[in-house]
C-alpha cells in the first residue's frame, strides 16, 4: 500500500465537505478511488461507471500522466488529480 494524496475537483466538494486534498492508502488508481468512496459514499460512481470505466468527461492524472486504466499501479508516494475534462465549449 502506498500513501496517495488525491486532489479533489470542485465538482466533488459536495461529497468531501469541501475538502480539496484527501490522503488514502491504495495500490492502484482504482483502489484510490475506491478508498475515497469508503470515506465519501457515492463519489466513485460519479466518476467511474458501472463498467468500471472512467467517465468520458473525467480525467484522472497520476502525477502528470493522464490514465484511463484504473489498474494502473501506485508505487511510492504519489499524487492523483481528479479533474473535469475540457470537453469543448
Amino acid at each position, binding site marked *: 500500500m502506498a500513501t496517495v494524496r488525491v486532489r479533489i475537483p470542485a465538482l466533488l466538494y459536495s461529497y468531501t465537505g469541501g475538502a480539496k486534498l484527501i490522503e488514502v492508502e491504495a495500490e492502484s488508481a482504482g483502489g484510490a478511488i475506491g478508498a475515497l468512496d469508503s470515506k465519501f459514499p457515492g463519489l466513485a460512481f460519479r466518476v467511474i*461507471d458501472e463498467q468500471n470505466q472512467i467517465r468520458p468527461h473525467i480525467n484522472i492524472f497520476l502525477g502528470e500522466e493522464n490514465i484511463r486504466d484504473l489498474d494502473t499501479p501506485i508505487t511510492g508516494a504519489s499524487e492523483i488529480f481528479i479533474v473535469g475534462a475540457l470537453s469543448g465549449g
Partner: protein
Amino acid sequence: MTQPVAPTGANAWILGTRKGAWAMKSNGRSLEEPWFFGAQVHHVVQDVRGTGTILAAVRTGHLGPTIYRSEDSGRTWKESERPPKFRTKEEYETSAFAAAFDRDDARRQGLTVDHVFFLAPGHATQPGVWWAGTSPIGLFKSEDDGVTWHGVEGFNDNPALAKWSYNFAPGTPDGQKCHSVQVDPVDPNRLLVGLSGGGLFLSPDQGRSWRPINAGVAMDFAPPKEDGSEYEYGHDPHDAVIHPANPRRWYHQNHCGIYRLDWNDDSTEQRWKRIGCNMPREIGDIGFPMTCHPRNADTIWVVPMDGGTVWPRTSIEGRPAVFRSRDGGESWQRLDRGLPSRAWHTVLRQAMAHNGCASLELVFGTTSGEVWGSRDEGDSWQSLVTGLPKIMSVTSARLD
C-alpha cells in the same frame, strides 16, 4: 403525462432544467433558490402516497447520473445509496440467461446509464416502491423509497429488448428513453412503459414479462412491410398515460400521432385509435407532452409541434397553442389566449403538468426557459416566469 395524479394539496410547481431545479409556489410567481444548481435535472417527482418523499433525477456534464431524495420538502437532500446502474458486461458474459442474446446484443459490451429520465411512484398498495426509466433504455425499481435501485430483470435482461429498442442505439437528440412508466391504479401488477424508440410495452406481472402493445400506431419513419402487416414494435411514443380515473382508457402522444385505447376485454387484441386525425389538418398531431384531466377521462391537452421537413419541434408556424379535447379526442379546441402571437416554443414531453386541485391549474415550460400557466383549464394562459434554463420537466408538489 409524467404525473397522472398530483400530490394532494399541491401548492408548488417543480421545474427541472438543464441547470438545476426550481420550486415555484403556485400562488405567486416567485422562485425559490435552486436545487442542484448547474446540474441537469430530468425529473423531480413527489410521492403521492402520503409520505411526501421527493426524488430527483440528476446528473452533471462531467459526473455520472444519480438520484437524490428529500423527506423535508426539498430543504435537504440525500443521494441514493445505490443509483440505477446496468449489469456489468462480465455479468452478462457469465450469466445463463444471456445465452439467449444475439451475438451483437449491445448488453454484451456493457451498458452505462447516461441519465435517469423518468421517475414514478409505485402502486398505492406498495408504499416505498418506485420505478425509474433511464437512457439508454432500462427500467429500475426501488423498494425502499428510492434509497437503493435494482434493474428489473424481466425487462433489462429480456432477450427481446435488444430488437425492441434498436439494440439500444443512441437516439436523437438526447439519447433513447424509457419513459411513461405507468402503474395501473386498479391492478398493481400491470405496468406500461414507453420506449423512444421501441414502442409501448405492457407487463401483467410487475415487470417479470412484457409484450408490445402498439397495434394501430403509425410508424411513418419506416417503410411499409412487404406483407402489409403492422409493425409490432419499433414505434416512438413520446408520452403515455393509463388514465387514473378510468384505467381502461389509455392515451398517448406519439412521434406519429395522438392515440387513445379503450381496453376491450372481449378482444384478444387491444388497438389504438388515432384521435389526432381529428386535429385541424394544418396543425397535425405531432408533439411531445400530453396531460389528462385527473378526474375526467375525456379531457386531455396536447401541445402540437412542427414535425415537418427537418423536425424543428417548435410551435407550428411560430404561433404557440395548446389544444384540448373534452370528448376523448373526437374533437379539439385551440387554446392560445394569452400566449404570444409569434414564438417558437418547444415543450418537452415531461414539461407539462396539472396540480390536481379542484380548480385545476395547468403549467408548461419551454426549452427557452419560459413558464406558462392557466387557471381555467387552458382557456387562457399567463406568463409566470421567464429567463430559466432549458426546462426539461414540470411536476406539481406539496411543499411544507
